[in-house]
């Protein structure tokens, strides 16, 4: 009896809660939506930019110096670098909200999940905050940020695979080592490599695509050791489109003495050393400095009242193939690209009164 009475009482509570929710959701009128970001003019000294990568990764370390340079050069009110998102979209959302609560009004974000990040951008913009997608663009054809300044990952992977195929003499077996399979950027990289392979007209076979080995160097080293142990003699080329596999495969191929052509990514000292001593054929370097520096410049301009000619435009920050002949001079090429990006934002992408 007591249980029945209690059940009835609790049933009433549950029903009341459900009814309240239903009433509030259906019986009330909704306030009009807040206006979107933009329109207001803020002086550079009042612009505070937060750079928020998806998590700790060597790729983002140049952002720190670039953002400080941007602060000095453009007279920004403040900059900060926060990598505490730990490759978790939920945590990144909290980090962004916390930074907004601390007074940061512009954000350069490398979204953890390209599939979800547009919602995060929309939420920030609904609070009149300016957002740029840096280093990685949202998945699909829509970019809800003011702009996306990132490496065109498919083109970069295509260039890397082309370089590897060239080094292999135009035929043989190629292996692709890359990152998280559930990241749409990885899917783009896979598509880029496949495009280059298909252009060989069947002379090059994509022996294997190994994914999910960019978590840390140890897992990459293990995967590469397993790969070389099982198929080392069949492989003619390895194309890397993620940082940890690149470092691991450069070292493992050098150690094994196998005649495999390795194309790496980014300019880690190990990889540059490999290019100098000939164990790494080439590397495709990106432009993280340009992303942070020019991203900061454009955010400052947008806060100052400029508007994007095409909101959500995707701008390629550039990728460069580095081989032995240009290993000492590629940075000049990258700096020239950064200068060009600034000019492009002024002339093509931004509209300032």
């Amino acid at each position, binding site marked *: 009896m007591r249980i029945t009475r209690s*059940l009835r009482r609790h049933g009433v509570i*549950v029903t009341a809660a459900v009814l309240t929710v239903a009433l509030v959701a259906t019986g009330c009128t*909704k306030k009009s939506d807040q206006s979107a970001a933009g329109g207001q003019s803020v002086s550079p000294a009042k612009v505070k930019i937060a750079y928020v990568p998806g998590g700790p990764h060597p790729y983002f370390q140049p952002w720190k110096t670039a953002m400080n340079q941007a602060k000095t050069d453009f007279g920004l009110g403040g900059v900060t670098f926060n990598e505490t998102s730990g490759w978790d979209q*939920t945590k990144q959302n909290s980090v962004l909200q*916390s930074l907004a609560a601390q007074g940061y009004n512009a954000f350069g974000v490398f979204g953890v999940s390209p599939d*979800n990040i547009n919602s995060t951008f929309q939420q920030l913009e609904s609070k009149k905050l300016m957002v740029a997608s840096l280093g990685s663009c949202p998945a699909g054809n829509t970019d809800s940020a003011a702009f996306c300044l990132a490496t065109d990952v498919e083109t970069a992977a295509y260039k890397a695979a082309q370089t590897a195929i060239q080094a292999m003499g135009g035929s043989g077996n190629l292996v692709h080592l890359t990152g998280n399979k*559930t990241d749409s950027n990885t899917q783009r990289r896979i598509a880029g490599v496949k495009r280059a392979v298909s252009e060989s007209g069947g002379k090059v076979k994509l022996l294997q695509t190994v994914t999910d080995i960019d978590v840390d160097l140890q897992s990459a080293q293990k995967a590469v050791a397993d790969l070389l142990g099982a198929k080392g003699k069949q492989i003619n080329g390895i194309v890397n489109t993620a940082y940890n596999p690149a470092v691991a495969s450069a070292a493992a191929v050098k150690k094994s003495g196998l005649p495999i052509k390795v194309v790496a990514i980014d300019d880690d000292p190990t990889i540059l050393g490999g290019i100098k001593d000939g164990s790494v054929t080439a590397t495709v370097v990106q432009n993280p400095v340009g992303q942070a520096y020019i991203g900061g410049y454009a955010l400052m301009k947008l806060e100052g009242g400029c508007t994007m000619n095409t909101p959500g435009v995707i701008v390629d920050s550039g990728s460069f193939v580095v081989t032995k002949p240009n290993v000492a001079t590629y940075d000049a090429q990258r700096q020239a690209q950064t200068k060009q990006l600034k000019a492009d934002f002024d002339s093509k992408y931004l509209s300032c009164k």
Partner: protein
Amino acid sequence: MSAPTQESDAMVTTADPGVGTDAPRGLPFWANPRFGLLVVIVVLVIVFTSLRSSFLNTSLTLVPMQQDVSVFLVVGLAQLCVLSLGHMNLAVPRMAAISAFAMGWCYQHLSVPLWLGLLIGLVVGAAVGALAGWIITATGVNSFIVTLALDFALVGLVSLLYSHVGDGVAFPVHPAGMTALRNDTFSDYCAGNICGPPVPLIVPIALVAALLVAVLFRLARVGREMLMTGSNLRAARLSGIPTSRRIIQAHALSGALAALAGFLLAVNSGAFSADIGNSFLLPSFLGPVLGGTLLSGGAVSILGTVLGAALTEVIRTGLNLLNFSVQDLNIYIGLVLLVALSLDRVRHVLAERRGTRA
């Protein structure tokens, strides 16, 4: 020694928000572990607010915190259901992922309404959970092993499904109502001049789930039999309780709640994607265990799970606002949790001594 105390404690605290009178007889009201958690939360809120006034910023701190707590509360409940048996469900993350796939696929390809997709997801989650429960009862293998193996199998399956049946790695579809559920709070809805509180729309969903689980374990015979199964399997079986059925039911409920958590996270983050659930494992244990649910089974605390989830979110948000670096953040989260739990234990021991003397 502490198990019976915890059990009686849990039995009475599951549904009632008024915990003050719920401490075991002979112990002062502050002996209730839930009270200790509440005090720690209040103290931390005061400390963080005094250091950063933006901690009380409604739209940038309080609303996002409530959204996150809602997700982690349901994740905690998913684990709590099997903890009641003394089992573990290491497949909570992937049960959420596979259900999110089912929901996303239905929204994308069948254009079902939001509620129907959720219902389908809950059924899928419950079915996977029931499968885990059935394997455990049929084989007698430890739940840790079974759910660990299931998690591995589902990792591969989810990835395969997204690449072959799905559209890459996510369903970018937004069924009607999903955006409102994500962005709106009750303060956006007004009757005349009176608007609701700044509570996100997903909070009541999590609270109703908590209330239903509380009613199950506190009042329903099935729930009590699950707790008895967890407390002593042999005794429960000898008492005529269909223990195998209860084990399967608890795991099915765990799967359904994991699916609900996956739905809430997808709503919060804006897409039904393959990485839903990746971050669920640790929080699934953290909330219930902080709240006083026993890993050995036989005692659960829903209110404690609510407070446990809230405590972890308060700590994370506070430390975020204080701009801790990534390494410091993890160290301090660990330290604050350790101190919080130690203080709670000291308080409990003191209370027990006092109670014994009385």
